[in-house]
């Protein structure tokens, strides 16, 4: 009899032991909201184990962290992995808001950081992380639109000034190809998924002006000649169709490409100013890395222009039990860590120093601009149109453009754009 009971109990041992894990969360003995350790999710797989863990973490712990240590978790497929985690309550304490989370979802996932009217006195790019007047995410650095080049390669092809129009851009790449056959004129980093999205996103405002985002939110055919969305994706198509990119996009290697552009094997990479410091640091030739403005001049002034915008927004997990520690980290990271400066970016902290990627811009007299925020109460409109349209934002759209341009996928550029326009129109009508 006893032994039968033992059998029954023994068979529930597994159940019992994990029920204890299930039922109870670790309790914090420290003051409310402070934890011994917080977890920060980041996409920087390159510097997470080094700079973050060995420099920023300890500096924070010794300073405003009051002994709280920071654990960094980095992900190569950041957006996908973190969005999967966001299906649960466990997605770190501080994280970058992944692509695809719309502003109206911010309150569901993240803790409010303050009112936009207050925080915009301290930080830039506040409206990008705002919903209904409350801020949920702060940009970790600021980027200027443009693209990275290897100055030596461009010079060797006889190019002395940046191209001013998309056609000039293509012509310049062709010059590079002719002058230096062993150099890849433009490397798409297709395999990462996120890198090619710059083509769709980086041209906003250049042809259509600072209100471009709001215009696009209500435009039923943004992929039409002359409009921002069209210019970027059309340029991508042309560049690939003219064979000015790498021969096998599917095996592109992001980390390796940094060294290659530093070396000069790659001449151009269409990524924002945040990439410059990474390319400079990837080899012995930091002086060869330059940054050129988007090849679309302001139609009114005839000058080069650049739109600055926030990088990934840092937010605090609403479900985190470490709200105070997380907030302390976030504030320190934004204001005192020096991250933005080290990335050569525009400092999101108004009082902080700006990075130095833009010396060429100053020489060219490039105009700095910002996109207008959405009208009050309509913060999430643009994001919701994207979502409702079903157009992917994870890179698969641009990958499809590349595949079609290189003949790997059947179809035509016109067909792609017509499809995009019709999907976008659906999204627009969903706004009602």
């Amino acid at each position: 009899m006893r032994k039968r009971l033992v059998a029954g109990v023994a068979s529930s041992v597994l159940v019992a032991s994990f029920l204890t894990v299930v039922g109870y969360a670790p309790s914090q003995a420290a003051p409310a909201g402070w934890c011994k350790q917080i977890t920060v999710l980041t996409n920087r797989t390159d510097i997470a184990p080094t700079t973050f863990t060995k420099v920023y973490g300890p500096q924070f712990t010794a300073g405003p962290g009051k002994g709280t240590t920071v654990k960094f978790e980095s992900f190569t497929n950041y957006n996908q992995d973190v969005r999967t985690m966001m299906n649960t309550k466990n997605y770190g304490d501080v994280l970058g808001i992944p692509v695809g989370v719309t502003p109206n979802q911010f309150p569901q996932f993240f803790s409010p950081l303050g009112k936009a009217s207050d925080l915009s006195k301290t930080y830039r790019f506040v409206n990008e992380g705002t919903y209904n007047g409350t801020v949920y995410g702060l940009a970790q650095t600021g980027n200027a639109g443009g693209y990275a080049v290897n100055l030596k390669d461009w010079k060797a092809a006889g190019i002395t000034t940046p191209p001013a129009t998309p056609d000039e851009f293509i012509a310049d790449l062709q010059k590079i190809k002719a002058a230096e056959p062993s150099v890849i004129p433009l490397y798409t980093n297709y395999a990462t998924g996120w890198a090619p999205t710059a083509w769709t996103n980086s041209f906003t405002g250049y042809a259509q002006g600072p209100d471009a985002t709001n215009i696009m939110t209500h435009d039923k055919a943004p992929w039409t000649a002359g409009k921002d969305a069209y210019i970027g994706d059309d340029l991508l198509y042309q560049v690939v169709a003219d064979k000015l990119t790498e021969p096998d996009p599917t095996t592109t290697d992001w980390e390796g490409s940094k060294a290659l552009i530093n070396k000069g094997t790659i001449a151009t990479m269409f990524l924002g100013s945040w990439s410059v410091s990474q390319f400079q640091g990837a080899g012995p030739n930091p002086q060869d890395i330059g940054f050129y403005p988007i090849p679309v001049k302001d139609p009114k002034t005839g000058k080069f222009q650049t739109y600055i915008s926030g990088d990934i927004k840092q937010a605090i997990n609403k479900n985190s039990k470490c709200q105070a520690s997380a907030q302390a980290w976030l504030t320190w990271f934004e204001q005192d860590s020096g991250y933005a400066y080290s990335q050569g970016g525009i400092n999101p902290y108004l009082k902080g120093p700006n990075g130095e990627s833009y010396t060429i811009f100053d020489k060219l007299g490039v105009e700095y601009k910002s996109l207008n925020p959405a009208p009050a109460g309509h913060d999430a409109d643009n994001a919701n149109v994207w979502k409702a349209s079903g157009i992917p934002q994870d890179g698969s759209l641009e990958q499809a453009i590349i595949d079609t341009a290189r003949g790997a996928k059947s179809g035509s550029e016109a067909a792609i754009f017509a499809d995009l326009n019709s999907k976008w129109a659906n999204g627009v009508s969903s706004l009602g």
Partner: protein
Amino acid sequence: MLKERYKRQVTPWLYLVLPLGLLGLLTYLPVANMFWYSTTNWDGIDPHKQYVGLANYAKIAQNPDILHALFNSIYYFGGAVVQIGLALFVATVLSYGFKGTNFFKGFLVFPFLLNSVAVVLIFRYLFQGPGIASHAGGMDYLLQHLGLGRFVTQWLGNPHIVNFSLAGVSVWRYIGFNIVLFLGAIQSINPELFEAAALDRANRWHQFRYIILPGIRRITALSLILAISGSIAVFEVPYIMLGGANGSSTFVIETVRIAFAENRVGYASALAVILLGIVLIVTFIQRNIFKDEQVDLV
């Protein structure tokens, strides 16, 4: 006496508490929930689930990416057929018991035991074009040195070839499993049949056709069924290799992406229901065609 009978009725249930509990929790409950979720447009997080009837299923038929992913299963099934054929050949030959059988067996079977990620990395390096190194990868190198240089292609970059390459990886990986199965089945055929055949001076081909083939019917049927459900449920090799890009995506990759990265649990559940349906239908057909299946375990 009654106490004894009572004990006999209740005791087994005690032993089954945990197994049945787990079965219910992790197999039946998810299946039931799956059907339920598929009729909603739930995003996995929202506490409220909105009923949409069969709208998700209608959407699936119109989604070209899903259809393409489903189409890719054919490559894997084709690979599996080749795999089964080759395995049958090898198993037959190994059953003759020539010297060195164990040696060959070892080499042919070991890939089956290798870690999924390791297998993909092995082939990713093999299929590499020039880029990470100054020269092309092992595959291209080999072809060039065998004078077959014109076959060099972008094994992963060429979307017409990529699925063949991935199916090939699958064959490399799983053929050992089939070989062992077939070999076991052949070796369990009554040796008297072979002796009788030898007396009748039947040659090896006749032996194969009239003794081996019938004797392994069950295992062959099983292998084909596993091939079908396996080719639809492919996930690891294409996902780790390319993340499903370049037209190499599969049904399960799409389901996982839609469910977790796009937060469309309802839609993904509809996909999963379809997948389950296909597998069940195929299994049902098999059980009816090969009625000599011993299903009874009690």
